[in-house]
């Protein structure tokens, strides 16, 4: 395999542009919640493909198992029972996992060069061999996705099966999805497909059906079709207007060069002060005074 296996758009903690002249087509995964039956096939296929096995846990009286994302669970189903109209129950099941943002907060926050990579096809991938385990990606993520492993203290999350995609096959979750709730392809075509789905849902009385492809994170490469796009929060707290937190932007944005400059300025100031003014020595009068005293 070539050293540089995919075309890179962004590389964490790297100040110069990575090799990124070549453009692979932008891909996207669409999760159509109106078609999802919450069977967890995607979860299983993900674990199976990526050779992950979590501990066998306990049930807490809900269907969400495993309870949350972690280093062994890169995607989980989140079930919510919602009654928007009295007596009209909806069981909204959202597959949660990395959204593969256009402007990834994890990448922005990551201090380790090359630990987070955004390929030109849109996939945001973690490279655990470069990861130092600081957890800044978690801090940076608007969707609360990455997790640090308790075993090796590396950050893990959905890779959108970058290994499969680079070999020309769809991600494992997409391939397995029994109802076709998860689809994958060129982003442009996927959006066309999503629009068809939305039209179908509107025809079935879901006036607010829509696509979830938030601008605030530079749009995403994992998108949802929501029956109630006006209320993303009912889908187990899907953020309404996700974006990289201003605190993270400041911390990993302006603060970095400004503070570095400031420190440089302090150093330079001191240096030139010394050069121009010289040392602060005991004055000659006092020296003399003490010399005399001694005598």
């Amino acid at each position, binding site marked *: 395999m070539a050293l540089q296996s995919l075309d890179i758009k962004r590389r964490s903690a790297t100040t110069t542009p990575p090799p990124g002249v070549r453009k692979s087509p932008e891909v996207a995964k669409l999760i159509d919640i109106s078609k999802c039956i919450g069977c967890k096939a995607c979860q299983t296929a993900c674990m199976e493909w990526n050779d992950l096995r979590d501990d066998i846990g306990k049930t807490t009286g809900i269907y969400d198992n495993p309870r949350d994302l972690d280093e062994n669970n890169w995607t989980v189903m989140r079930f919510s029972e919602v009654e928007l109209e009295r007596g009209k129950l909806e069981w909204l099941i959202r597959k949660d996992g990395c959204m593969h943002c256009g402007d990834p907060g994890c990448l922005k926050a990551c201090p380790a060069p090359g630990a987070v990579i955004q390929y030109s096809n849109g996939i945001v991938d973690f490279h655990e061999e470069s990861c130092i385990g600081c957890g800044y990606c978690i801090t940076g993520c608007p969707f609360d996705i990455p997790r640090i492993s308790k075993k090796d203290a590396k950050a893990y999350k959905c890779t959108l099966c970058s290994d499969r995609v680079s070999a020309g096959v769809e991600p494992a979750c997409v391939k397995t999805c*029994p*109802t076709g709730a998860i689809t994958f392809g060129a982003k442009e075509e996927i959006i066309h497909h999503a629009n068809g789905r939305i039209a179908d849902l509107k025809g079935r009385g879901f006036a607010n059906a829509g696509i979830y492809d938030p601008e605030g994170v530079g749009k995403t490469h994992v998108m949802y079709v929501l029956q109630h796009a006006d209320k993303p929060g009912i889908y187990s707290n899907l953020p309404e207007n996700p974006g990289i937190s201003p605190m993270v932007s400041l911390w990993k944005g302006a603060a970095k060069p400004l503070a570095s400059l400031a420190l440089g300025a302090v150093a330079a100031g001191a240096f030139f002060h010394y050069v121009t003014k010289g040392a602060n020595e005991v004055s000659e009068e006092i020296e003399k005074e003490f010399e005399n005293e001694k005598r």
Partner: protein
Amino acid sequence: MTNHWVDIKNADIVVIMGGNAAEAHPCGFKWVTEAKAHNNARLIVIDPRFTRSAAVADYYVPIRSGSDIAFLGGVINYLLSHGRIQHEYVKKFTDATFLVNDGFQFDNGLFSGYNKEKRSYDKTSWGYQKGVDGYALTDDTMQNPRCVLNMLKQHYSRYTPEMVSRITGTPKEQFIKVCEMLAETSASDKTATFLYALGWTQHTTGTQMIRTMAMIQLLLGNIGMAGGGVNALRGHSNIQGLTDLGLLSNMLPGYMTLPGDSEQDFRAFLEKRALKPLRPGQMSFWQNYPSFHVSLMKSWYGDSATRENNWCYDWLPKLDKVYDVLQVFDMMHQGKLNGYFAQGFNPLAAFPDKSKIGGALARLKYLVVIDPLATETSEFWKNFGEYNNVVPSKIQTEVFRLPSACFAEEDGSLVNSSRVLQWHYKGAEPPAEAKGDAEIIAGIFLKLREMYRKDGGAFPEPILNLTWPHQIPGKPSPEELAREFNGKALADVTDPKDKTKVLAKSGEQLGGFAQLRDDGSTACGCWIFSGAWPQAGNMMARRDNSDPSGLGNTLNWAFAWPANRRILYNRASSDPMGKPWDPKRKVISWDVKSGKWLGMDIPDMRPDAAPEENVGPFIMNPEGVARLFGTDKMAEGPFPEHYEPFETPIGTNPLHPDVISNPAARIFKGDIEALGTAKDFPYIGTTYRLTEHFHFWTKHAVLNAILQPEQFVEIDEELAASKGIKSGDRVKVSSRRGHIKAVAAVTKRLKVLDVDGKKVHTVGIPIHWGFKGVANNGYIANTLTPFVGDANTQTPEFKTFLVTIEKA
């Protein structure tokens, strides 16, 4: 399934009732989502629980578990009273015009001929009026009050929307909305499909629930149509195949039956089964029964089977009664069985009333378990604390546990729900010393045969003369066995119309069941599978998935029985004149030019039977048409009637309080005493499967154990509040037969129903846990279920029983 998985995409209305396709058959359910996406179909889910299927339904309707006949009978009443039926279809393709015997009666919950002591019916009055020529009488004007359609109308006139709502707990408006949606498909260019599974079969009235739905499909003209049909979504990967192969107590391969004690005469045995047409010109396909039967006996007993010895007729065991599993385990419990084999089957977990099953197994002298996994049954004698509290030293059963290969470690074929036989290939060796199933059977049989050959014993002839044509006798190969059930010519088989034309040379594989003969010149182990491995090779391994019609009938993919036909009764997809009811979904039609039935499927009709001949599309029935009137085929009556579950939460039957439950259902004496009442056990218990697990297997698979690690039960919020139960609490669920403890899941997906003026709660009990496996150990859910079965299939009533619940 009369139709097949992919065909669901052609439906306009999909009804899931008595099943939960999304949960239990997610990959088949895909075709429902395809119907919605590409055929603008509407999905209706009718279920006591808001299931995963309901999560993506257009319309969800709650119903009380076990009251489906009331609901469906109400639909029949709606369709008939509003005239929303496919009139021409009903008139020409069903027995609507047939006249019913005058002796036939229905009165206050009982049909004519009931015998209370025997809990069964004398069915002589359950038939059509017959003319002197032996044919059934009809009234094409349908004015005669005794004609089936009028009898039907009368029978279901009691099933008013009010009555339906009172029995089922379904709000009246919701019931009517379903009726209206279904009625749309009475149009000839609209079809509905019904998908069902164990949610119907596991009731004491299960078979009749299915029949009621089939009657609706006939009234709507949906059978034989692409996107229509009666579609049983079977539970296991080869439950269809094993049923096809007759692995049921009273069956032989290909839905042939074992003789009863009284059938001492071979001729009479055949004649009873080779049904003569009930109307002129009908195919009555079972007339070929002798060919199928004789070929089977030639396949099993080879040269020993001769015309002189009636093809070894007496070597077949005869039945004095049906030995279904409830019967057998009841006998075992009484100490009447000594030995038992469980091949890939876990009866301790799978059968009702676990303590009775455990007690029964403990009375055996020997138990042989053949399985890839360590099942509960194989360790029924071991103490697992509260989950299996037994004393090993008191159990004298010798137990053998033989490790078998799993699917990945063998070649062979499985029949899916679409009746498609698909060949699979071995990808790895079995672990350590495990062996393939056929090798294990051969190992036991050959030892036994050797003993009989050496020492003699009781009736050794069938054992000594059973054909065993295997290159390596101890290791019969799947190819050899598949070729055997396909059948071969023992002498040249010629065309009956032209004796000079040889269809199959002696020794060649047969091309299909049409080549079977009753003169001993053909051998065939399972007539409906004939054609799976003809002289040309293994049809089950075909992999051409092309679909020229776009309707999804991939005729060159593997092999479907019968005769590679994908949609049964497909003659009914065209009108009496042979023109498709709906040109957009033409399955077959009459081609005037060639004088043949042609289309995108193998015609379910004599290929040259011109429409003018009036050959009915239901060729297996001697009437040639479908039966709205069930004649004597069902145990509890020709028209389905609502009977309460044996453990009923309302304690009465609003239709006829004197006859509450199914008068012909399977129940044994000791088990009547073990039934609970609503006074002590006020809630409906219902058992079911979760999509993350497969029965009791996947608790052995780490991935699935991760997805649903621990036993739980589901209850509605109102019940939870009244008992002070919160999600995550441990609760104890008890029935008259025992208790289980599990984690509570409090959910909006279960609702209180208003039934006959009472508030009825449902406690949902997923079944997948036990005391063996990598998931957390749990109780066997069938500790709770009653030992009572359906009147026709004897399937236990796992879906409705009474329980109570408290915090553990």
